[in-house]
């Protein structure tokens, strides 16, 4: 895997360093950027406003997960407006509800792009919804900022992926478990749909082809999938106890998560005797699971709410002020927060709202002090270079960050030999 040390910015620089250049850019007036010049393709841009779309599920089963993203994007847009907007224009939002239904997502994205002529869209959450809107974004040539970590195998010029693709989350995490937990035998577990299956394929490949070279004892001792919503994991847990893996690698999602952790604990599988690493459990899920039921297990993400850097602390404070003191912020919520900032940076770099021009401007855009730490848009695939982190679950449902990848990890949505 390629990594880079380029432009590494230490955390802890003052917020000013981030805000100063942006404030200066914000002070540019719209008059310096006449509408006729910055908008040659008929987007909804006037002399003092620009309209963007927001497309998440507000109702239905996905509403639980997507609400955090909606809130984060709104917060970012509000902050950008307070700084003077984008090219001197205030951002207006047209929000549509995908209603947890993929054809509805497609229909609403058409409405946003064709009827409202939005300058870009922040939205989608599940891969299924992204796949449903993708042909429309490509045909109508608009830009989607997509926040969720996902299985990869995609790189559209009309999508900016602000979450991790699968290899960014999996490979470094497995290496970490190999080094630090002495993991040699692995039990892979997932919910039965594309993301867990693809992710475990990548994990298995890494264990069998790379880790096994370092130590021939490395092997996968089990790989299993359970339907979404499954609530009885007792048989699986007994199998895990029989095989005694060094590491339980878990990609269980949604409501099943709660049943999974509670039953693990009830069967005596706790962090005292077993190691478990997950890439699907964030602060959001822990609300339902209860930290005490998963205490001491590990998660590999690129963001944890408890990260101690001034920008994250400012972000968490602003988020709680706007959306309530009880709010929790998971990995995806932070990734959603990055979307509007990346778009703003691209528009200002291009000096234009035109989709082709911001596409050309995306490579190498940096957010030096994003809440998660420094990130940069990839040279070619519109994913983010970012650092992976390992968090240890605490009883209060937060994570203690115990490891951070030294280098930025390159997004590699089409990994060789992993398919």
């Amino acid at each position, binding site marked *: 895997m390629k990594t880079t040390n380029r432009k590494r910015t230490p955390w802890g620089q003052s917020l000013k360093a981030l805000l100063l250049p942006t404030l200066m850019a914000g002070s540019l007036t719209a008059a310096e950027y006449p509408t006729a010049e910055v908008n040659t393709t008929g987007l909804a841009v006037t002399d003092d406003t620009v309209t963007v779309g927001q497309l998440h599920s507000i109702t239905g089963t996905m509403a639980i997960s997507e609400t955090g993203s909606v809130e984060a994007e709104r917060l970012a847009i509000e902050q950008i407006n307070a700084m003077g907007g984008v090219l001197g224009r205030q951002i207006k939002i047209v929000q549509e509800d995908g209603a947890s239904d993929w054809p509805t997502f497609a229909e609403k994205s058409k409405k946003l792009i064709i009827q409202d002529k939005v300058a870009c869209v922040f939205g989608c959450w599940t891969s299924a919804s992204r796949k449903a809107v993708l042909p429309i974004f490509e045909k109508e040539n608009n830009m989607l900022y997509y926040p969720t970590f996902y299985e990869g195998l995609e790189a559209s010029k009309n999508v900016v992926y602000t979450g991790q693709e699968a290899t960014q989350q999996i490979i470094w995490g497995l290496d970490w478990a190999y080094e630090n937990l002495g993991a040699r035998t692995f039990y892979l577990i997932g919910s*039965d749909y594309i993301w867990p299956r693809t992710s475990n394929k990548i994990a298995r490949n890494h264990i069998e082809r790379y880790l096994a070279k370092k130590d021939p004892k490395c092997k996968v001792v089990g790989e299993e999938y359970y339907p979404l919503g499954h609530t009885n994991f007792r*048989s699986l847990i*007994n199998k895990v*106890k*029989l095989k005694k893996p060094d590491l339980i690698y878990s990609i269980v999602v949604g409501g099943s998560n709660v049943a999974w952790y*509670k039953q693990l*604990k*009830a069967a005596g599988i706790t962090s005292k005797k077993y190691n478990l690493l997950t890439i699907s459990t964030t602060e959001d899920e822990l609300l339902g*699971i209860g930290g005490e039921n998963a205490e001491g297990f590990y998660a590999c993400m690129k963001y944890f709410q408890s990260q101690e850097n001034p920008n994250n602390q400012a972000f968490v404070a602003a988020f709680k002020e706007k959306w309530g003191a009880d709010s929790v912020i998971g990995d995806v919520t932070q990734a959603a927060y990055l979307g509007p900032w990346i778009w703003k940076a691209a528009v200002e770099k291009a000096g234009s709202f035109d989709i082709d021009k911001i596409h050309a401007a995306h490579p190498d855009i940096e957010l030096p002090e994003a809440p998660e730490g420094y990130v940069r848009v990839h040279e070619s695939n519109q994913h983010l270079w970012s650092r992976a982190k390992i968090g240890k679950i605490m009883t209060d449902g937060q994570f203690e960050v115990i490891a951070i990848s030294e280098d930025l990890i390159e997004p590699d949505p089409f990994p060789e030999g992993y398919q």
Partner: protein
Amino acid sequence: MGGYTAQEIYSIVVMQSFSGVSLLCIYVLMGLGLYIIFGQMGVINMAHAEFLVLGSYTMCLFSKFITESVPALENIYVFLAIPLSFGIAFGVGYLVEWFLISRLYKRPLDTLLATWGLSLIMQQCFRTFIGAREMSADLPEWLLGSWSVNDSIDIPISGLILLVLTIFLTGGLVLYTTKTRMGLRMRATTQNRQMTGALGINTKMTDRVSFGIACGISGIAGAFFTTMASTSPSAGTNYIVDSFLVLVVGGLGSLFGLFISGAFLALLSSILEFFMTGSIAKVWLYLVIFVVLMKFTKGLFSDKVRS
């Protein structure tokens, strides 16, 4: 099972058997309320699972209240939560029967639609008034752990309590339907409404109480399910299929059948899940059920008395 010692295999057999028994209890608890409503009263209640969820929410909210206001009771509030969830689910069920179901006894297909609508309304109420996020009850530590019999055998405490609760509830229900006046009235009403009415029994009141009791039992089951699964507005969708399945396989009108079919399904899925992976085991489980229902179209133990 090459490579494992006799001790390991023995431990796994013990734990897997206990898992099977726990699953049997879950099936029975899911089915009990439905046995009264569907099996006895003949109402296809699509909102059955929402009463389970109502019990779960009662448990969660009550635990929140206890930890915030009366922390002294933290360790034992579970025992108070059980009658409370019964009471709340009973009350809601009583009202639902009064205002909705009682008007539909002669129109079984409309009941299907009406109760499905009711389930959507209840889900949306949970979402609007309690919140869309998943909730978790703060359960006392002693309930969550396991009892380590020896190094390799861990028996979940919640599983043991589940077993006791199931025996208690089923026993109670058997006594209720066979030994009490209300229970006899319920059975008489479901067998012949007109005749029972002619004998001077208030059949409407009987229906209301029966429906309420069924919902209350589901509420208790739901309260207990918080110890092992999630509570969210749409959690009911995880229960509804299994509830109907266990009842239909057992034969609608028989409590004994419910037990046997629960045991049959639990045994089957424990064995299948152990030797196959999760999703495939589910496919085989449904295939076997399909074949069983082809052979016994009225379930394993259908009520032979009815004409």
